[in-house]
């Protein structure tokens, strides 16, 4: 008996579903508030009141349930299959973490409650700070940023504030060409000018390239480690020295921390400031776009610049607002607490050894795929990679099949495609990140699908141009969408 592949595409029954507003029926209603137990108000000038009610749909609760049951079934998800989106660390999201975050003792806390009534929440946050401090080797942590990019912004502001505190005005920042788009965008948002650093032929940054760009007005370097082509920045220690010698600081984009947990501490290598994507590395669900959380860890010397409030430790925990050097708040309240609970739960369940094991396995899985997929696809840098591997469509392009066609072709086999056309430094990239929670079986099934697509690219390229055929919708017209933007329902108007 041959073992069946755990994932192969199939077709099934779904239902068309109108947009919610087309389900609306005047007078239909799903909710009622408790009967009013105080006198109705008599104080408002009618001129202040809203004239035309918002055209929210008028529907019943069963209407909404059907709407979202049907819509959700059109989504691919980690729960439904392998989701090898490079740079996104789509690992399994444990359901017990959802239960913990939903406890009334967490979900029911108002952010303005007296501190004595939220000691458990503050304790959890302190414990999570300690975990992140230990993993990054950077002991001072803010949990406030809402996502990775928000963490970049926060961390770069810390670098800027540290410079200003020394009386320096450094207006430029070095960023490798391969960086994620948020890096230069965050730099701009902080008022920095970006200076691109190319990678060497091996795909990693060379100390010379950094040295030659360091200057008195350079605030530092923003580096992703391992980098966005999945390679360990082998010269990073030296590069950090170069930056430090030039009076700069090194910002680490922690999006790829899943390769390093408990294996190498970025702070030990020389990184000064780093954000961590809890919605990647710490297994909190991505929710179709968010919420995430992007805590920032910094060296002890930079602690005073972190956003306020910080948690003051002691027998009772409290919020310290008296932070004269702080860059200030980057959002309301204390961070995406619900996400922090899930990340805390993940860290506690895994423990130190578990996290290290996860990183090792993530790297092993990526290398397995690198070797297996290398038989059918070009590997951008074919040597041991970290937690992800970048392929290209070079061989398939000879048959007129592009990365995008390969991506769409995979869908019919029941798979989510890899990240495509990123990083930009690799033309037509396909970036595969399996994570440690995928099994050998699932990876073998993915390899089988990738091989089938590669074969089809040779045998029948047009079949791939016409892919996908199985999903609820086939290729969508993005040009039309951008040319004639229809960004909301028009109510027949």
């Amino acid at each position, binding site marked *: 008996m041959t073992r069946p592949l755990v994932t192969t595409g199939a077709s099934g029954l779904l239902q068309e579903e109108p*947009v*919610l*507003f087309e389900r609306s029926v005047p007078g239909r209603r799903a909710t009622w*508030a408790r009967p009013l137990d*105080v006198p109705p108000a008599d104080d408002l000038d009618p001129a202040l009141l*809203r004239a035309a*009610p*918002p055209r*929210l749909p008028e*529907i019943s609760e069963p209407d909404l*349930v059907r709407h979202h049951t049907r819509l*959700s079934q059109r989504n*691919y998800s*980690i729960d439904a299959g392998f989701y090898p989106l490079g740079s996104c660390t789509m690992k399994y999201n444990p359901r*017990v973490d959802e239960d*913990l975050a939903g*406890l009334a003792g967490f979900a029911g*806390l*108002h952010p*303005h409650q007296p501190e004595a*009534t*939220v*000691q*458990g929440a503050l*304790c959890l946050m302190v414990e999570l700070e300690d975990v992140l401090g230990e993993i990054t080797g950077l002991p001072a942590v803010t949990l406030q940023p*809402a*996502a990775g*990019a*928000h963490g970049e912004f926060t961390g770069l502001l810390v670098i800027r*504030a540290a410079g200003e505190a020394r009386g320096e005005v450094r207006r430029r920042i070095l960023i490798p060409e391969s960086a*994620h788009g948020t890096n230069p*965008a*965050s730099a701009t948002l902080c*008022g920095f000018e970006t200076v691109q650093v190319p990678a060497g032929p091996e795909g990693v940054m060379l100390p010379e390239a950094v040295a030659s760009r360091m200057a008195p007005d350079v605030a530092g370097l923003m580096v992703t480690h391992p980098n966005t082509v999945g390679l360990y920045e082998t010269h990073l220690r030296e590069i950090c020295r170069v930056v430090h010698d030039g009076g700069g600081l090194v910002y680490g984009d922690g999006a790829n921390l899943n390769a390093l947990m408990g294996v190498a501490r970025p702070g030990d290598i020389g990184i000064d400031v780093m954000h961590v994507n809890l919605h990647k590395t710490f297994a909190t669900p*991505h*929710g*179709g*776009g*968010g*919420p995430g959380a992007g805590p920032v860890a910094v060296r002890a010397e930079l602690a005073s610049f972190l956003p306020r409030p910080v948690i003051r430790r002691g027998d009772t925990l409290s919020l310290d*607002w008296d932070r004269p050097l702080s860059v200030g708040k*980057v959002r*309301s309240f204390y961070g995406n*607490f*619900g996400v922090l609970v899930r990340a805390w739960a993940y860290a506690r*369940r895994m423990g*130190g050894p578990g996290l290290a094991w996860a990183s090792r396995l993530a790297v092993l899985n990526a290398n397995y795929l690198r070797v297996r997929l290398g038989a059918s696809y070009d590997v951008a840098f074919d040597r041991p990679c970290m937690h992800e591997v970048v392929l290209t469509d070079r061989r398939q392009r000879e048959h007129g099949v592009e990365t995008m066609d390969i*991506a*769409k072709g995979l869908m019919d086999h029941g798979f989510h495609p890899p990240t495509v056309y990123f990083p930009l430094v690799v033309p037509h990239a396909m970036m595969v990140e399996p994570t440690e929670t995928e099994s050998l079986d699932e990876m073998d099934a993915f390899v089988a699908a990738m091989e089938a697509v590669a074969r089809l690219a040779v045998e029948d390229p047009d079949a791939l141009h*016409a892919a996908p055929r199985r999903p609820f*919708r*086939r290729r*969508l017209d*993005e040009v*039309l969408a*951008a040319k004639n*933007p*229809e*960004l*909301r329902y028009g109510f027949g108007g």
Partner: protein
Amino acid sequence: LPGGLTEPELLETGDALARCNEPATAAASILGAGAYRHHIPAVIRHLASRGEYLTAYTPYQPEISQGTLQAIWEFQTLVCELFGMEVANASMYDGASALAEAALMACRVGRGQRTRVLLAGAIHPDAMEACCTYGRSGIVRFDALPPAADGRVDLDALRCEVGPATACVAVQSPNFVGLVEDLREIAAIAHGAGALLVVVVMDPHACALFEAPGPCGADIVVGEGQPLGLPLAFGGPYVGLFATRTAFVRQMPGRLVGRTRDVEGRPGFVLTLSTREQHIRREKATSNICSNEGLCALQVAMYLALQGPAGVREVAEQSHAKALYLKRAVAALPGYRVPHDGPFFHEFLVETPIPAAALVDALAVRGIYAGVPLSGRYPTRTHELLVCATEANTRAEMDRLVAALAAHGGAR
């Protein structure tokens, strides 16, 4: 780091921490000030936690992401309708950071000629501070214009301050102390100087009761989405709402979902106008935002759809009626004073006979969360308490609270 835990151990450990907290949802609470307790229909959690929504990434591959895409497109429409605006994005981090992004956007609309932002009147201190933090870049200058004695925007001062460098006037309405601002007048002043009007709404239910910011002349409306179906959760995850006029859409931050067709001509949805975004434009992007608050936006979309026009209006009216009841009761207490009497939504300021922080601590041990002392953020304002009632407060709860306040008023 210590070793790992089994699931039973983890649940026990987490539960023990949760039990060290005393949630507002189980107390007599009149806390507001940026986070509001409204009833969340039970069905929302069930639908939003479906694995297909919960464990999907950003919908980069539209053919297999039509669920999230259609839902977010509906969210965009719902936000537009509530705010009376033409276009809304797929969400920002929260209300405070959305305000900062709105200010930056106003500067982009001002094409670098206008880089000054006037933060007028009583704006939530977190939002004010977030603006200042975003202002550290030097791209934009934020100036605060303190409220007038009546607690609302000082219109005369505003008239003096707006000018050719003003990118926008930003105003919160209902404002930090619960008062409804005269948006039409403020819009006239801003527009008169060629500046935009940015309005931030911290509890969007207000827009179901009072005239929406759009018809009043707002050019950008941002909001905190938490009150629309999200748990209090100690401050997050919440969701920033962001809406503007179609004319400005290319200056907008954040993702946008658009409707289009597939190769067979069937309607479908895609992320669109991405040339504004960091992954295409990098350092020239309108914002650095990438991951947003998608699942929270989904919950807001479910909430607004369930409530419908009648539901949101009922919640808003009841909240106002309860707050009015509370306000009159507190105003009648000896030792207490309610300083403002302008039109208000569901929040108001109280002057207390003893320091507000002490009062709050004294009542907390009795399971009463009596409001937010302003001294936490404004150390000199020791005897001011911000309180809020919503439809979730019962009269009995408020009577108990008023009695407790009375006891502490007399004890002076």
